[in-house]
């Protein structure tokens, strides 16, 4: 890669730009370390390459970065002061003459500093601890707020979807009714085949824990399609359940059956609600 003794100009440029493979760059850098001429040329090329940094979109760093940097420096200086090696005996002799009370000037200054610095450091530590605690609480609050926001957004999207489906002219509304023991039960289904969305609600008695209600769409051709399992609320609250169905599935009827907890791929239990499309 070198032309005689020196690095070729083309390679110097690529090296400065960081465009050489690692092994090649290592060899050339080793040469530049021992060759003042190549080192000087490389420094020039680095200078040219560095101007490319000016092509980046200019942004201002957060003010906290500088605050943290200065705090880091202060902490380091305090640590250095604290762990400063004690003076040797012959160095002690050079300490300025003692004051009348017998303490040296440095000693007096140190005592005075200690009286000031210890409370200041204590206050600083307490303030830091409080800020850390406050920061942690704020972070937790922020996380909760973000979580709530996502919930609200999800609810809003669901509501918009429901309004869209219910107001769409091609949505079919079907009333479902019970018979026999479940004659008092009722339900309704709103189905939009184009969007593949089924909305349904039902008033049904509570079930034992090992049983669930399962909603079915009975297509014009083929087997019933599950639209999910559901359980009425403890107080018989009427909820609106949603299910997605393969697009453009034409429905012949809708039905609700009682099935084992978790649901089944095809209906097996008694039919409690039925409505023809």
């Amino acid at each position, binding site marked *: 890669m070198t032309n005689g003794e020196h690095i070729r100009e083309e390679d110097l440029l690529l090296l400065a730009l960081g465009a050489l493979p690692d092994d090649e760059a290592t060899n050339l850098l080793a040469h530049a370390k021992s060759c003042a001429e190549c080192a000087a040329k490389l*420094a020039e090329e680095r200078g040219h390459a560095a101007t490319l940094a000016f092509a980046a979109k200019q942004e201002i760093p957060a003010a906290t*970065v500088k605050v943290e940097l200065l705090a880091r420096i202060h902490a380091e200086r305090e640590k250095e002061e604290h762990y400063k090696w004690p003076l040797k005996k012959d160095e002690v002799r050079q300490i300025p003459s003692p004051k009348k009370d017998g303490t040296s000037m440095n000693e007096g200054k140190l005592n005075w500093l200690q009286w000031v610095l210890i409370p200041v450091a204590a206050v600083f530590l307490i303030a830091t601890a409080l800020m850390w605690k406050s920061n942690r609480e704020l972070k937790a609050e922020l996380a909760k707020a973000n979580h709530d926001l996502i919930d609200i957004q999800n609810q809003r999207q669901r509501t918009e979807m429901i309004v869209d489906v219910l107001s769409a002219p091609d949505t079919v509304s079907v009333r479902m009714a019970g018979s026999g023991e479940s004659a008092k039960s009722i339900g309704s289904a709103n189905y939009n085949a184009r969007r593949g969305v089924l909305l349904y609600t039902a008033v049904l008695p509570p079930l034992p824990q090992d049983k669930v209600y399962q909603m079915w769409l009975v297509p014009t051709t083929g087997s019933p399609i599950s639209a999910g399992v559901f359980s009425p609320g403890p107080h018989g609250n009427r909820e609106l359940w949603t299910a997605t169905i393969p697009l453009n599935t034409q429905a012949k009827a809708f039905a609700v059956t009682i099935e084992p907890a978790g649901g089944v791929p095809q209906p097996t239990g008694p039919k409690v609600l039925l409505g023809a499309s």
Partner: protein
Amino acid sequence: MRPEGATNELVSDWSLMARVVQKDEGALSALYDRYSGLVFSEAKRILRDTGAAEEILQDLFYQIWRTAERFDESRGSLGGWLMVAARNRAISKLRRKTGKAEELDENTVSMHVDIESRASQNLLLDKVRAVMGSLPEGQREAVECAYFEGMSHSEIAAKTGQPLGTVKTRIRSAMETLKQVLS
């Protein structure tokens, strides 16, 4: 009353560095104000991550504080050194390389353009952007892949589907254009 920072711009980088060696925080603060935007923007352009760019910015200035005595005018341009060091650290982070920071930062950087004052920085920003905007697409892409993505010439050739010789020529031509404008 002088506007904030006006005094700083009258003092050269190396004069400020001499004060940093004496542990003058004000001097470090002035250097930070002078170069933090450039260093942060460069690191962020490479990493596309604000937090990581801020970390590099803070670490670089902390290194300057801790090892100020190792910096002197023989290093060339302090601003240039900062740009190169920030770039190297960001690329190492990007490519998950594990080179020692000290090794990366031994570089000497000579710049013939003044970047110590805000005005000269702004002027250079305009010039470099104008040059980059005027370069043929292939040249600009090759230079950006190398500098901001840390790609070697062979990686750029593989990415762009161009022969290695073409990539080298494009990089050389782009850098020649940049040097001409800056000179």
